C-alpha cells in the first residue's frame, strides 16, 4: 500500500515544514516535472502541483501528482473550483488518491479572465469552503449529501488563505470556516509585507486557528524587479511592498537578491508564532530551491518528500498521529 501523507507526518511531529511548488508544463510530457521533482526530492517535505494556475491550461494537476507518487514523492494535489463541478471534483480526488496522492489542497481558483481562455465558462459549482468539506467528508467515507463510500480515502486536506486581501476580518472568518470544514493545513499567499503578515497572524492566533491548522507561509522567489512589478500589479491578491522592488532594482545580481529575500523571509517566518512551515513558490526557478532551503538552515529535512533511492515505504520511528 502507498504511504501516508509525509507533509502530515512532518507537521504533526511539530517540525517546521517545507514544501515547494511546481507548475506543470504546457505540453503532454512529464519530463520537466520529473526533472524538477528530482531536484526537490531531498529538500522539501512535499511537492505541490498547481491546477491550471492563473487560468492557463496546463498538464493536469492530477496526472502530475500521480507521476510524483509513482516517483515516491509526497505530492500536494491542488484542486480549484473554477474548472470542475462537484462530480468532476469527486472523480479527480478519487483518481489522485488511487494513484497514491495523499494531500489535497482546495482553492477557489483565479478568475479565467486573465488566463489562456478568457472566453471560457467558469464553473464554481462549489466554493473553496464547500470543497474543503467535500474532501474532508471523503476522508471520512462520505460522499456529498452523506452517501457512504465503499472504501473511504486517505488524504490530508488543506486550504489557502490570503493575509493581504480585503477585508482582512473576512479572511480570518473564512479561514475559521475552512478549519471547521476539515482543513488541516493552510498555505498562505506569498508573503513580502512582513508587518502586515504579522498583524494577520496575530488575528489568527487570537482566534486559536494556528492550533487547528498547520499554517505554511507562502514565500516566493522573485527573479527581477520586473517580475516583482508584475506581481504587484497583475497577480490578484499579491502585495509587494515598494522597498522589495527597490532592492531588486538596485541589486547587481537581482536573482541572487531574490534568493536572499527568500531566505530572510523564511528566517522571519520561523520566528512568527503560529507559523508551522513555509511553502516556497519559485515557478520557473525551481532549481534554486535546494539552495534556499540550505541557506535557511532547513536542510536536511526530517522526512524528505521522497528518499533518494527507489520507492519508499513508511519508515520506522515516525510519530504518525492517526487522530
Amino acid at each position, binding site marked *: 500500500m502507498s504511504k501516508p501523507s509525509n507533509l502530515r507526518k512532518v507537521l504533526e511531529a511539530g517540525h517546521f515544514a517545507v514544501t515547494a511548488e511546481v507548475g506543470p508544463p504546457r505540453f503532454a510530457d512529464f519530463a520537466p516535472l520529473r526533472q524538477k521533482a528530482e531536484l526537490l526530492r531531498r529538500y522539501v517535505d512535499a511537492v505541490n502541483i498547481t491546477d491550471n494556475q492563473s487560468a492557463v491550461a496546463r498538464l493536469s494537476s492530477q496526472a502530475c501528482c500521480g507521476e510524483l507518487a509513482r516517483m515516491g514523492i509526497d505530492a500536494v494535489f491542488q484542486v480549484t473550483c473554477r474548472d470542475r463541478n462537484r462530480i468532476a471534483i469527486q472523480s479527480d480526488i478519487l483518481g489522485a488518491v488511487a494513484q497514491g496522492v495523499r494531500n489535497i489542497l482546495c482553492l477557489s481558483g483565479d478568475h479565467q479572465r486573465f488566463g489562456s481562455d478568457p472566453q471560457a465558462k467558469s464553473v464554481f459549482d462549489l*466554493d*473553496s469552503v*464547500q470543497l474543503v468539506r467535500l474532501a474532508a467528508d471523503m476522508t471520512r467515507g462520505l460522499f456529498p449529501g452523506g452517501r457512504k463510500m465503499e472504501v473511504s480515502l486517505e488524504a490530508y486536506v488543506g486550504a489557502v*488563505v490570503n493575509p493581504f486581501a*480585503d477585508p482582512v476580518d*473576512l479572511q480570518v472568518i473564512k479561514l475559521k470556516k475552512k478549519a471547521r470544514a476539515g482543513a488541516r493545513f493552510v498555505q498562505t499567499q506569498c508573503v513580502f509585507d512582513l508587518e502586515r503578515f504579522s498583524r494577520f497572524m496575530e488575528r489568527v492566533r487570537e482566534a486559536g486557528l494556528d492550533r487547528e491548522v498547520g499554517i505554511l507561509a507562502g514565500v516566493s522567489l522573485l527573479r527581477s524587479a520586473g517580475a516583482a512589478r508584475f506581481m504587484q500589479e497583475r497577480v490578484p491578491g499579491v502585495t509587494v511592498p515598494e522597498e522589495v522592488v527597490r532592492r531588486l532594482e538596485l541589486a547587481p545580481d537581482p536573482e541572487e537578491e531574490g534568493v536572499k529575500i527568500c531566505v530572510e523571509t523564511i528566517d522571519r517566518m520561523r520566528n512568527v508564532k503560529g507559523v508551522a512551515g513555509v511553502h516556497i513558490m519559485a515557478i520557473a526557478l525551481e532549481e534554486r530551491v535546494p539552495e534556499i532551503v540550505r541557506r535557511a538552515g532547513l536542510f536536511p529535512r526530517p522526512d524528505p518528500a521522497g528518499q533518494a533511492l527507489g520507492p519508499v515505504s513508511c519508515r520506522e520511528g515516525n510519530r504518525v498521529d492517526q487522530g
Partner: protein
Amino acid sequence: MIIGQRKPLKRIFEMLDPYDRILIAGCGSCVTVCMSGGLKEAEETAAVLRLHRQAEGRPVEVRARVVERQCEPEFLETLDADLPHFQVVLSLACGVGVQRYSLFRPGKLILPGLDTLGSGLPVRQGLWEEVCLGCGDCLLDQTAGVCPITRCAKGLLNGPCGGSRNGRCEANTENHCAWQIIYDRLAARGELNLLEEYRPPKDWSRGHWGGPRRLEREDMPIV
C-alpha cells in the same frame, strides 16, 4: 428590470442585409428605461440603417414602432396591421420579447436587435448592473440584500476569494467586490455573525442548471 444593449451596428446590418422592407419594433418597458430598445432607439436604428443602405446604393424602407410590452401578445397585436408589408422585424426587446413575438407570429421572421444582459438595476445615471441570476432559491436574507451569486465574479457563498483588493474585484477592477459590500453592510447592521455560518453547496437544480424552469399555477382557472 431586464437590461440589454443594442447589438453592434455591423451585426445588425449583416442580419438585415437581404431585406429591404424592415420593421424595427421597440419595447416600451425595461429596455426603454435602460435606453437601448425604446421608440427613440428604434428610430435611431432606423435612421442609421437608412443612411448605411443609401451609402451602399440600396435604399431600404424602414419603419420604427414601439409596443408597451413585447412579452405579451395583446400588445404585439397592435402591430398586426403593418406586419404583412414588412419582410422582417428587428425586435429591440429583450430575449423574452423576441421569443414571444416569434412564437406569436410564426410566419414572420423576427430578428434580435439587442443583447440581453440579464436582470439588473440602475446604479447611477447612465449605468446599469446585473444583480440577479434567478437562481430559484434566493438567499438575500443571509447576505444583507446583496447577491453573491450574481455580483461576485465567482459566485462564492462562504466569503471572498483572495483576490479582493481595495474593495474591487480581481476579475474586473471596475466592479466592486460583492463580498466587501456584503461585509460592510452586515458590519453596519451588527450582523457579522452571519458570515461565520457555513453555507452548504447550493442546489443549482432549482436554477437554470436543472433545465429550463416552469411556473405553473394550478389554482388559476383555465378560461
